[in-house]
């Protein structure tokens, strides 16, 4: 990879259950969890608590490119995506992307990760219900009556279908950012956010663009996802205190605590950063990804070995030893079977003492595709202020992590490793270095 020019992160932004990227930082430093009871429109959504995003349509309209964004054309996935991209544009000083010269727009791309764009199910459930044959329904049976499809669609618009297409987060974001270069939506498991960042890095290395907006959207607090996670036994137990339910790498964790987030970055070549005058915050140093078939479609992984191999591969690509790393953002999903393996892999990778291991899921829950990018946001913030917030709700970490620094300190944070592990077997790691 040395033949390729450096690629820098020059700006970032996020929307989370705690607020924007600054509010996320403040909450984490203050040890406050954004996980709270699910009420109103989210009433009865399992497990009954989570960290839904507090971001509003009004706030979106005030962001660069946000005025043209209309809620009726967007799923929650897309809303979080454009929110994160808007925050990123704002922080990058790109106040009016639509006014950019054509040659600038031609060399700007958007790559976003999204754990599909489907799980917002209300309309589809309504249609399913409406299609039920009346006679069968009178007997308590559900049988589809095809003649009821069309009447069942009363009140639907074309956007109720278009907006569920998987590329829509990126399609909206590319219009918002006036990006006419490469655009793609990476789908799949919760590790997909780091994959989108890495593919954007690839696009820059291949010369497809000079500037990429990359990140992910992760609406964890959604109908389809919450119900499915619950059905598959992956979700946190009910009847817990919401503020202490999300317990990354803690033996008391009972499962995933759903959280909403979107996070994005401006990645650019050195030449482009020089032209825009944006200050490089960090250099992308190494990336690795690994797929290992789990024992079942949603896990567990066969052991800690693949996680260790993944981390070592990212470090090798960066040209680092494990001892060079100052900060690790782990997954800390709160799934006992995954956390135990991650803890074992981290312990073997770095040993006790250093670096800081800083999980963020205690603050905003597990944010699906946005989890990895949000970990990167946290690492960049630690590089900027030298503070490493304590891991929230970690009272009894897995034994392997005894003696490790689970956040809660300060120091010169130069090199960071971000891990994003999906229980389904896709594993991603990114190494970044402060400039």
């Amino acid at each position: 990879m040395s033949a390729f020019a450096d690629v820098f992160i020059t700006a970032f932004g996020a929307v989370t259950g705690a607020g924007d990227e600054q509010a996320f930082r403040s909450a984490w430093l203050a040890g406050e969890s954004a996980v709270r009871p699910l009420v109103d429109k989210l009433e009865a959504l399992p497990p009954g608590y989570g960290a839904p995003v507090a971001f509003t349509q009004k706030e979106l309209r005030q962001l660069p490119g946000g005025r043209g964004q209309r809620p009726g054309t967007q799923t929650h996935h897309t809303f979080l995506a454009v929110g994160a991209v808007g925050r990123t544009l704002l922080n990058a000083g790109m106040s009016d992307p639509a006014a950019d010269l054509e040659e600038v727009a031609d060399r700007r791309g958007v790559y976003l990760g999204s754990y599909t764009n489907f799980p917002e199910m209300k309309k589809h459930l309504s249609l399913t219900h409406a299609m039920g044959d009346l006679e069968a329904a009178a007997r308590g049976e559900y049988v589809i009556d095809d003649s009821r499809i069309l009447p069942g669609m009363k009140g639907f618009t074309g956007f109720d279908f278009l907006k569920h297409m998987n590329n829509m987060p990126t399609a909206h974001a590319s219009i918002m950012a006036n990006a006419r270069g490469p655009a793609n939506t990476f789908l799949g498991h919760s590790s997909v956010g780091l994959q989108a960042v890495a593919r954007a890095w690839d696009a820059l290395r291949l010369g497809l663009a000079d500037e990429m907006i990359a990140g992910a959207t992760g609406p964890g607090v959604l109908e389809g996802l919450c119900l499915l996670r619950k059905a598959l036994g992956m979700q946190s137990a009910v009847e817990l205190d919401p503020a202490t339910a999300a317990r990354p790498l803690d033996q008391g964790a009972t499962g995933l605590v759903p959280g909403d987030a979107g996070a994005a970055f401006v990645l650019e070549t050195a030449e482009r950063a020089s032209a825009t005058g944006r200050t490089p915050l960090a250099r992308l140093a190494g990336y690795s990804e690994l797929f290992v078939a789990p024992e079942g479609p949603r896990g567990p992984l066969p052991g800690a070995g693949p996680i260790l191999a993944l981390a070592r591969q990212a470090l090798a690509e960066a040209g680092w030893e494990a001892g060079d790393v100052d900060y690790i953002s782990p997954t800390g999903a709160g799934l006992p079977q995954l956390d135990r393996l991650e803890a074992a892999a981290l312990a073997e990778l770095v040993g006790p003492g250093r670096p800081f291991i800083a999980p963020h899921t205690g603050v905003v829950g597990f944010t699906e595709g946005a989890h990895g990018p949000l970990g990167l946001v946290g690492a960049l913030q630690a590089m900027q202020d030298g503070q490493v917030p304590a891991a929230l709700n970690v009272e009894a970490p897995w034994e392997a992590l005894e003696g490790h620094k689970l956040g809660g300190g300060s120091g010169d944070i130069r090199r960071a490793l971000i891990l994003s592990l999906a229980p389904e077997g896709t594993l991603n790691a990114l190494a970044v270095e402060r400039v």
Partner: protein
Amino acid sequence: MRRRVVVTGLGTVTPHADDVDRLFAQLCEGRSAVERITSFDPVDLPSQIAAEVRYPVEGPDFLGPYDLRPRAMRFSWAAAQRALASAGLPELAPDDFAARARRAVHLAVGVGSTAIEALGGITLEAWGTPEVSTKRDLPAFRRAAVKHDDAVAVLEEWFVDQAAPALATMLGASSVTTAASACASGSHAILDAVARIRLNQSDVVLTGGVCTPVTRSMMPGFSMLSALTTANENPAAASRPFDMDRSGFIMAEGCSLLVVEELEHALARGATIHGEVLGVGIATDSYRLTDPEPGGRGMGDAMRRALLDSGVPSTGVQYINAHGTSTKMNDAAETKAMKRVFGGRDATPPVSSSKSMFGHLIHAAGVTEAIVCLQSIKHGRVHPTINHETPDPECDLDYVPNVARDLTVDVAMSNSFGFGGQNVSVILGRYDGSRA
């Protein structure tokens, strides 16, 4: 020096056939696969026709932890079987981590699952019969749903994340990517596979797309977008790309996959090379979600960038497989873009639209049409655009109307343009060992 990318495996499950040679033969005969929908009764729907896979696609029910019974999973497995058999790749030992690290899967996956229909019983429990219930409040549904884990677990199919991992276990790959850029997805998957190989991240990538959108919700949904034709009376004549009387596209289902491989890797193992991916180009309209930029700006940019990437001059392209959806806007904009890129009407090579016969395979379209281009190179023949009867002054190129044509094709372009303004062009060529 840039690593060259060649195609060493082809696999397909399309409405015409599950074999690339039979698919191409039927296309050259001008045979349409469009018929009235059979997977459900489309009574009263605006668009009642589609190109469905109507033959049985055999295969196991499970592959390790993956359930292959859903239609998209079954199609993916079957197309992968064919592509991998065609490529003749050696099977890797489970502990051959080094070799596995050089293999990847990149799959475009699209809309179209009927899994939510499994929740119908829960909707009745929560909301009563459709006749008496007017309020469909979600909390009531949730309270009912949490008592039915088995039914809800079927929703897993609704997510699109299982197919690529399943294919990775077939290939022995340690890298998995799933992506979507709507109707450009299949070509996009080729582009991303090429990127992996050029960046020396992989030597072999199984890449392509799958889509099963002929469902009770997607058919009327796309009709609401005014995207689908409602010319139900004569299904075979309904898809009319570039014709004056075109009125929308035809929904289709299927899966197509390529094994793409770094050239030296392929040569070293004596693989059969079906062609070379000479160039890829990508551009975004950044215009509207539903409409292409009317001047074809993004389309033209994708074509121009693909040519630039390939190093082939526009005069070196002998054939274009168009996106050619049969919508008013796409076909006019694509024609403008082609003329601009190739230097006018007379300088644009023959163009045909496979969608005139197999409809729009959405996420599988680009890669299926790339296979068609490779078949044209192989057989020296280009298939027609059928139903081209009434010329449209806005569409004035040579669309190979209605009858196949013998044509030596060394280099072909395949275009794919998606809802949301994502555009990808791929340049495919005959493998030439002497090319630098």
